[in-house]
C-alpha cells in the first residue's frame, strides 16, 4: 500500500501466537472439563459396580440426549450474551402436540413434523419479541416459559398419551446395531458437527463472539445484530421441538409437564462447559463435555447408591466452583494486564512530558 513507506521502513513481522501450541491446546477451560470427565469415568469404572456395563452407556446417552441437543443452540445464544429459558417448555409443548396429533390419527411423520414446526414458531415468537420489539431475552423467555408450558398443560390437562407407533418408538430407543450407543446419537453428531462448524469456522460464528463482547462495535462492523439473534432463537426453538419429539418417543409418553425444569440443566451444562454467562467466550467441545460430565457423574453416583438430593448438591457445587474458577482466572489475568499497562503508562508519560 505505502510505496514510499516500504522503501524506508523494514516491514515488521509478527508472531501469530504469544504461547506455544501445546499450552494453547491444553491449558484451556474446555480441556479442563474434558480432563475432569475422563477422571470421573476412570474412577467410576474402577469403583462403581456395574458402571462398566453396556446398559449404563445406553441409558446415560439416551437420558442426556435432549440436553445435548438443546445445548447446541443454547451455546450460541449464551455466547451472544442472551439466554433462552423457554426451551424445556417448548419440549413440553411439542411433546403434547405430537401426542394429540398422533391420537387424532395423523401419520406419525406428519405429527412430528408439525410439532417441530410449532417449535420453530415458538422460537420465532421469542426472536420477534427480543430483536424486533427489543425486550431483554431473560424477561421474554421467562414469560414464554410460562406461556408455552401453560398451553401444553392446557391442551392435555393431567392426562397422558402413551400410544405411539411401535416403529417410531423402537427407532428412538434402539441402539446403533452392534454397539451400546443409542441411535439418537447419529442425528446428534450430525447436528453437533453442523453447529461446531457454524460457530468456529464461519463468518457467522465470528460475529456471534463479537456481538457477545461488544454489540456496538459489532454493529459498527456491519453485523446485523438483530437478525443474527433472531436466527439463533429460531434455531433454539426448532431444535427444542425436535428434542420434544424424541422425548415423547423415548418414554412413549406425551404429557404437559414433560421435561419440566430441563432448561436449567441445559444452561448449567453450558456454563460448566466453559461458556461465559457474560457472552463472547466458549467452545462447543467444552459444552458437550460439560453435558456428559453432569450426566456421567449423576449416573455413576446413582449406581453407587447415592440419593438424588445428594447428586443435586454435588452437581450444584461443581457448577458454582466452575463459575468461580472462571471469574478468578479472569481477575488474575486482569490484574496482570493492568500491572503491565501501568508500567507502560508511566514510562510513556515521562517520555511525553516536556
Amino acid at each position: 500500500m505505502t510505496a514510499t513507506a516500504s522503501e524506508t521502513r523494514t516491514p515488521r513481522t509478527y508472531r501469530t501466537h504469544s504461547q506455544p501450541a501445546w499450552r494453547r491446546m491444553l491449558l484451556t477451560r474446555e480441556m479442563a472439563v474434558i480432563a475432569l470427565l475422563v477422571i470421573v469415568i476412570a474412577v467410576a469404572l474402577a469403583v462403581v459396580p456395574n458402571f462398566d456395563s453396556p446398559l449404563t452407556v445406553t441409558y446415560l446417552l439416551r437420558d442426556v440426549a435432549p440436553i445435548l441437543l438443546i445445548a447446541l443452540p443454547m451455546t450460541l445464544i449464551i455466547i451472544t450474551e442472551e439466554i433462552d429459558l423457554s426451551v424445556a417448555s417448548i419440549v413440553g409443548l411439542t411433546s403434547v402436540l405430537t401426542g394429540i396429533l398422533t391420537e387424532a390419527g395423523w401419520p406419525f411423520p406428519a405429527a412430528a413434523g408439525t410439532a417441530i414446526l410449532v417449535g420453530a414458531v415458538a422460537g420465532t415468537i421469542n426472536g420477534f419479541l427480543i430483536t424486533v420489539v427489543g425486550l431483554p431475552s431473560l424477561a421474554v423467555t421467562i414469560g414464554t416459559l410460562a406461556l408455552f408450558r401453560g398451553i401444553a398443560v392446557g391442551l392435555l390437562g393431567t392426562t397422558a398419551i402413551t400410544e405411539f407407533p411401535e416403529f417410531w418408538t423402537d427407532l428412538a430407543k434402539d441402539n446403533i446395531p452392534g454397539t451400546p450407543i443409542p441411535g439418537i446419537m447419529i442425528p446428534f453428531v450430525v447436528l453437533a458437527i453442523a453447529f461446531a462448524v457454524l460457530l468456529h469456522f464461519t463468518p457467522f460464528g465470528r460475529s456471534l463472539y463479537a456481538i457477545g463482547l461488544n454489540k456496538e462495535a459489532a454493529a459498527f462492523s456491519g453485523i446485523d445484530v438483530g437478525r443474527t439473534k433472531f436466527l439463533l432463537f429460531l434455531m433454539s426453538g426448532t431444535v427444542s421441538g425436535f428434542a420434544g419429539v424424541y422425548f415423547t418417543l423415548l418414554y412413549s409418553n406425551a404429557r404437559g409437564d414433560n421435561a419440566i425444569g430441563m432448561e436449567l440443566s441445559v444452561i448449567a451444562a453450558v456454563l460448566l462447559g466453559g461458556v461465559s454467562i457474560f457472552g463472547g467466550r466458549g467452545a462447543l467441545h467444552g459444552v458437550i463435555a460439560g453435558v456428559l460430565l453432569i450426566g456421567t457423574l449423576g449416573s455413576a453416583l446413582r449406581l453407587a447408591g447415592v440419593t438424588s438430593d445428594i447428586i443435586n448438591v454435588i452437581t450444584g457445587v461443581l457448577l458454582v466452583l466452575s463459575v468461580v474458577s472462571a471469574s478468578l482466572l479472569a481477575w488474575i489475568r486482569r490484574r496482570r494486564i493492568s500491572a503491565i499497562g501501568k508500567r507502560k503508562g508511566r514510562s510513556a508519560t515521562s517520555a511525553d512530558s516536556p
Partner: protein
Amino acid sequence: MPVEMDGANGAAVAPPALELSRVVKSFGAVLALRSGTITLHDGSIHALIGENGAGKSTLVKIIAGLYRRDAGEFRLAGEEVDFHTTAQSKAAGIAVIYQEPTLFPDLSVTENIFMGRQPTNRFGRIDRRSMRTQAQQIFARLGVSIDPDRVTEGLSIADQQIIEIAKAISLDARVLIMDEPTAALSGVEVERLFAVARSLRDEGRALLFISHRFDEVFALCDTVTVMRDGSYISTTPIVDTSVDELVRQMVGRDVAELFPKLPAEIGADVLVVEGLTRAGVFHDIGFTVRAGEIVGLAGLVGAGRSEVARAIFGVDPYEAGSVHLEGRQLPKGNPRVSMARGIALVPEDRRKQGLVLDESVTRNVTLAIRSSLAKAGLLWSARENAAAALWASRLEVKTAALDAETGTLSGGNQQKVVLGKWLATEPKVLIVDEPTRGIDVGTKAEVHRLLSELAQQGIAILMISSELPEVLGMADRVLVMREGHLTGEFSRADATPEAVMFAATAQKEGAL
C-alpha cells in the same frame, strides 16, 4: 510561547479565593493537563476558554474533587488543599454547576436544595417550614420565582441550574464554577442566569464561567484565561482584549511538522451527500468528497458531525436526503451494503465502537472482512492470521503477538488496529472520526502521514476532527458544522483558524 501574566497585584491583601498553579494530570499515556494555572478572586467573574481538549474539563474536575492532580499546587484562600472526593470539595466551599443538572426529579425543589442536610427541629424531625422559608429567601435574593413546593421533574434546564445555584448558596459556597451553563438555554434564560451570576459576584463570591460563546464572555466576565493543549496560555482583564486576540491565542500553534500533507491528484466526485436531515440532530447537510481529496469536518463537540458520519455509513437513521456513492444511491440504515459498496467508518469511540477489546488483534482486523476471507463459506485461521499480519505490519502496530487481546495495546496502536480493520475492506471512501483523539504525538504524525498516502492513492477521505490544527493541516477543503447545520466551507487557502472558529462558535454579527 508568550505568557502574559495578569497584573499579579503582588500587594494584594487577601489571598485569592482559589489558585491553581502548574497542575498536571495524566491518564495512562495521555497527558490531559500539562500545566493548569488559574486564579479566582472574590467578587469577580472569571472566564475560562479554549478549544475542545484544551484541558478545561480536566481542570474543573480537579477543582471539583473528581480527579486528583499528579503535580502542581492547588490553594483555596491561601491554604494548600488536596481533594480525594467531591464531598471534600463541597465542604471546602466549592460548587460546580454542570451543563445538565442532576436533581432528584420526584422530590420537591426545596428537598433538592437541602438534600442530605435537611434542617431538623428539636425532636429530630425534618423541619419543613424552616427549609421552605430558607429556600424562598434564597430565591428572593436571586430575584427568581420558582415554587419551592413543586417537584423538579418538568422544570426547564435553566430553572434546574438556578436550583443548583440555590443549593450552592445554601451551602454558602465561596467559589462557583459554571461549566458551559448556557449551552442549553434560550436568550431570556441566559439573561436571567447572568443577573444571578452578577448578584453572586456582588455578594463577594468568586465565579468561574466556562463558555464557547465569546459574546457571553465579554458581556459577563471581568477576566479571561485561555488554555490550549492542556496548558495555560494567558490571563487578561476582559477590557484589555478582543475576540480576535482570544481566538488567536486559542488556536495559534506550531502546525508544520505534524501534518505532512502530500499533494494528491483530485479526481471525480465519489461521495455525494444531499439534504441529509435527522430532526433535532442535523439539518439539510450536503457536500461532496472527491477521489484523492481530504475533506475536514470541523466544529465543536455536539455539533452533529459524528451523527452525520454514522448516518452516511448506515448505523444511524436519517429522515430525509440521500447519499450517493459513485453515482449510486446507498440504502438507509444498512452498514453491510455501505461496506460492500466501499464506505469505511473509523468511529469516534474506538474502545466502544471501533474494537472488540477482549478479542485478539487478528479477530479485530478481520472482523469487517470475515466474509470475503471465507472460502466456500468456511473461515480458516491461517487466512485470518495472514490478513492480520499484513495489515499490522503495514501500519506498524506494536504488539507482542497477533493473538494478544486488543485491549492490552496502547491507545495509538489500538487506533492503528481500527484503521487496519477498515483499510482491509479496501474502501473508496474512508470516514475517520477523531482519528487521533487520545493518542501520543508520534503516532498522531504516523496517522496523518497514512491519511495523506491514502488520499494519494485516490481514496476519498472525510476527516472529522475537533482539533483545528489537524483539520487545517490535513484537509484540502474544510466544512464546518454548528448545532446540526453546515455553517461554512473553506478551501485550504481560505481556511484560517479564525474563520473556522467563527463558523463553529455561533458568533452573532453584533457581538463582534
